[in-house]
């Protein structure tokens, strides 16, 4: 099947007629050793594409170490950009075109199964003639390894070309690669130069000019040597758009929500939220407090919120575990608190830079004792922004903890979305410190709803001590049966009230029902929607539903489920496979949302989950849908 290697390697610039492939979407990646700037190249390519009106979804390719050894398959660093005509809602399946700065990082991507069978590879070929015989041998071995694939490998003399412009090619290759990509994808060079200016002009005019020269050289090389181009037509939306990743969106959302303090401790992949905030928060009067540990971060946020400033804390799984006791305190003292958990792989230190959705049950049930609180999950990068506004309002209106479950996929994925129309009302009203008559109780629980007004320190007449001990409406320590039962009911009732305020989720597909309903939550929405669309295009009777509220769950689920022959969650967390040794229907550990849905609806909800350290691919979900409809065989 595969053409012989020599046919696929364009060692000499044999110019052929250029064929332009017009496609609705294409996925490109740029990989290098860390420090060679592949990420910058990919970011600029993504931004330029978004500015031209394409849908874009960018993910970072990051090794675990800051500076792993050079030319190491596990050290690949870069960016993966999926470009589409319509909005791109997920990272897609496999990469169609890769620019690799050495054959080892290419090998790494190949071994991970990241590349499509027929991927085109633009590969730096300086290594083939390196002075070091070991490197030449490694090159030959790698190419021999790849000879069994159907990749189309195009050798590019990146180093030699860059040396025509700069003395140290290591510092310019990424802009040369950007030029190549701009040629292949017909990107507007002027827009690329604008981005280069934004990145480099603050350094010096000379640096900017050199980078532009490299860009143009890359473009020219492509024009002279490549025999193909890719056209992904753009369809500009016409409305103002912004492009950013989910952590940037959450950080800006926190500002838009009027939050005034965040207390945090460094933890991947949550930390960049505080990086963005550290840059800008002070100009809004906001404080990023880097606490001595995760526990203190929760404590400072709760203290600040108790005193009347809207505060939040941001963390990831291990930090969530450490904060547990304080979260119970926020619930018990009815102190509003927003906690953003950017989930990573776990348990323990797990996979710090990779995505998982394994914190769901810990988020809802992880606080010893009964600690009812709100848990929500943004499904898109855009929602990472808006959910912070919602979270603040919920935390204050319901006087409780609101956990926001984002994940590494949303945190590092970059996509354009409609620019939020900011509203000063999102910032909340200034704290009310007007005097209260003596004897006002700090928890005047409404008998029906459990809701009560906050009494902030500084309010004359309202003096009281809040406590994590069981307490009465007056916040007096209580041990009597009636108070214990009632105060627990009041804290719990708030969730029932909220649940009744929510609208039932919208079914994507056939609201009237069908063979299969796929249920998801969090960052998987884009991939699930795409998989369901593909399956429906084949005529399969499948619909999907995506939950933003996990605690309380959105209303009407049981009724919706009853209209489908089968219901299955799709999640990025671990579940036992039916048929695995010892695994039975009774002892099978299921996906976390499935667990929750089964418990709350008594419907036999199945699950399909994977923990591969990467976002789910639409093709894999599509396959799972087919298998489910075929009676389980995959």
């Amino acid at each position, binding site marked *: 099947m595969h053409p012989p290697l020599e046919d696929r390697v364009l060692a000499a610039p044999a110019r052929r007629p250029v064929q332009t492939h017009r496609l609705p979407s294409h996925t490109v990646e740029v990989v290098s050793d860390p420090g060679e700037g592949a990420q910058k190249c990919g970011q600029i390519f993504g931004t330029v594409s*978004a500015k031209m009106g394409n849908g874009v979804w960018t993910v970072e390719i990051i090794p675990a170490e800051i500076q792993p050894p050079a030319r190491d398959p596990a050290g690949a660093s870069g960016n993966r950009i999926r470009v589409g005509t319509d909005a791109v809602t997920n990272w897609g399946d496999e990469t169609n075109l890769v620019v690799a700065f050495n054959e080892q990082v290419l090998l790494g991507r190949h071994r991970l199964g990241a590349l499509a069978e027929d991927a085109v590879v633009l590969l730096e070929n300086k290594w083939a003639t390196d002075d070091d015989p070991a490197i030449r041998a490694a090159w030959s071995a790698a190419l021999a390894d790849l000879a069994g694939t159907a990749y189309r490998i195009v050798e590019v003399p990146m180093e030699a070309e860059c040396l025509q412009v700069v003395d140290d090619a290591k510092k310019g290759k990424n802009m040369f690669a950007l030029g190549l990509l701009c040629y292949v994808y017909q990107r507007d060079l002027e827009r690329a130069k604008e981005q280069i200016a934004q990145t480099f002009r603050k350094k010096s005019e000379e640096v900017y000019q050199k980078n532009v020269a490299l860009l143009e050289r890359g473009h020219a090389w492509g024009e002279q040597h490549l025999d193909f181009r890719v056209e992904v037509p753009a369809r500009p939306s016409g409305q*103002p*758009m*912004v492009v950013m990743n989910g952590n940037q969106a959450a950080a*800006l959302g926190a*500002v*838009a929500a*009027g939050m*005034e*303090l965040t207390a945090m401790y460094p933890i991947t992949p949550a930390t960049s939220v505080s990086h963005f905030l550290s840059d*800008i928060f002070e100009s*809004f*009067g*906001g*404080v990023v*407090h880097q606490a*001595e*540990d995760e*526990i*203190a971060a*929760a*404590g*400072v946020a709760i*203290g*600040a919120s*108790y*005193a009347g*400033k809207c*505060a939040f804390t941001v963390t990831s799984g291990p930090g969530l575990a450490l904060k547990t*006791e304080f979260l119970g305190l926020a619930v018990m*003292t009815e102190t509003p608190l927003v906690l953003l958990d950017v989930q990573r792989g776990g348990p323990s230190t797990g996979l710090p830079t990779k995505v998982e959705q394994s914190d769901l049950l810990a988020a809802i049930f992880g606080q010893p004792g009964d600690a009812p609180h709100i848990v929500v999950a943004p499904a898109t990068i855009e929602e990472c922004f808006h959910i912070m506004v919602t979270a603040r309002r919920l935390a204050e209106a319901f006087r409780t903890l609101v956990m926001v479950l984002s994940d590494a996929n949303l945190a590092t994925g970059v996509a*354009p979305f409609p*620019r*939020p129309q*900011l*509203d*000063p*009302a999102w*910032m909340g009203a200034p*704290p*009310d*410190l*007007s*005097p209260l*008559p*003596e004897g006002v109780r700090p928890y005047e629980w409404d008998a029906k709803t459990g809701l009560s007004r906050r009494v902030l*320190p*500084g*309010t*004359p*007449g*309202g*003096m*009281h*001590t*809040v*406590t*994590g*001990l069981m307490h009465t409406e007056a916040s*007096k320590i209580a041990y009597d049966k009636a108070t214990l039962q009632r105060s627990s009911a009041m804290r719990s009732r708030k969730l029932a009230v909220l649940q009744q305020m929510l609208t039932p989720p919208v079914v994507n597909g056939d609201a009237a029902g069908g063979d299969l309903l796929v249920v998801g939550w969090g960052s998987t929405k884009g991939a699930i929607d795409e998989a369901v669309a593909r399956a429906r295009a084949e005529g399969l009777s499948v619909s999907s539903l995506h939950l933003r509220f996990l605690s309380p769950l959105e209303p009407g689920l049981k009724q919706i489920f009853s209209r489908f022959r089968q219901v299955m969650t799709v999640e990025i967390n671990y579940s036992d496979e039916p048929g695995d040794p010892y695994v039975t229907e009774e002892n099978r550990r299921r996906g976390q949302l499935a667990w929750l849905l089964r418990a709350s609806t008594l419907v036999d909800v199945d699950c399909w989950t994977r923990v591969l350290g990467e976002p789910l691919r639409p093709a894999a979900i599509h396959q799972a849908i087919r298998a489910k409809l075929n009676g389980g065989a995959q």
Partner: protein
Amino acid sequence: MSATLSLPVCSLLDCAVEDERHFEMHDYEGPVARWCPGCGDHGVLTAVTKLLSAEQLRPETTVFVSGIGCSSRLPHYVKTYGFHGIHGRALPLATGVKLSRPDLTVFVAMGDGDCTSIGAAHWLHATRYNVDMTALMLDNNIYGLTKMQTSPTTPQGFASNTQPRGSYLPALNPIAATLGITNASFVAQTAEWVPQHLYATLQAAYRHRGFSFVRILQRCPQYTTSIFQQAVRKPDLVELLVHEQGVQLPELDKLYKRQRRHDPKDLDAARRLAEPDDVIRLGVFFKDETRPRYDEMRRLPRHTAEEKVRLLNEEMERYAI
């Protein structure tokens, strides 16, 4: 006192508010304390209440934050605002309160287990942050509420329910430890059985701008009476550190003959005096108001919602396409 005073919202802005009210000690008194008879906590509560009245602290802008343990019940017995938190974590809560509301006066009450064991990291860092608050560590050398377990400050050899053959290790020295922390700005030790000294020390701590750490030696009538009994009965076992910049109480001269003039500015001397000796030293070991204060550094002007929206729209331009 009058309850009809109208306080504008701008108290959040830390502006001075004219207040014609006068507060007596009883204005700060909460419900009857439920500590054991003879517990040192009672004396601390009295001194605190006296201080509040002497300094005319407005009850509504005073906050007592505590952890968990006998001593951490203190906020419940003072008629101000209070936050009875979780074990070991009073200091982060208090830091959050003060960072967000500089207009509030913050006191912290914690025990020896709270401060020097489960919350030791926060003790170290709160000392370094030097946020303006008065931190009282009520040190009875034992876990009382959980019924007599060894604490870090339990004397070596003292038997408890967890170390019945006597505490294995030499007791941790909280004064020496605090003096070793970069940016410590006020470190004092007092004892509840010398009420004048306790009160004067609390007052000096309160008046200090920065993080004031006061270790209060106190008897637990249930479990550790014997530890301090000697010192209570024999004033010669106590040495007072006296100075006009620290605590100086001529009325104690007759009883406490062992006195040493110690300038609280002298950190080296303070560290020497903090080392174990045959005496218990009470007084201000160290005080330096020139140390940087994190809460001051992090204080920022507030903006209106409209201003923030304008600024955020500018910021959003960076991401606009």
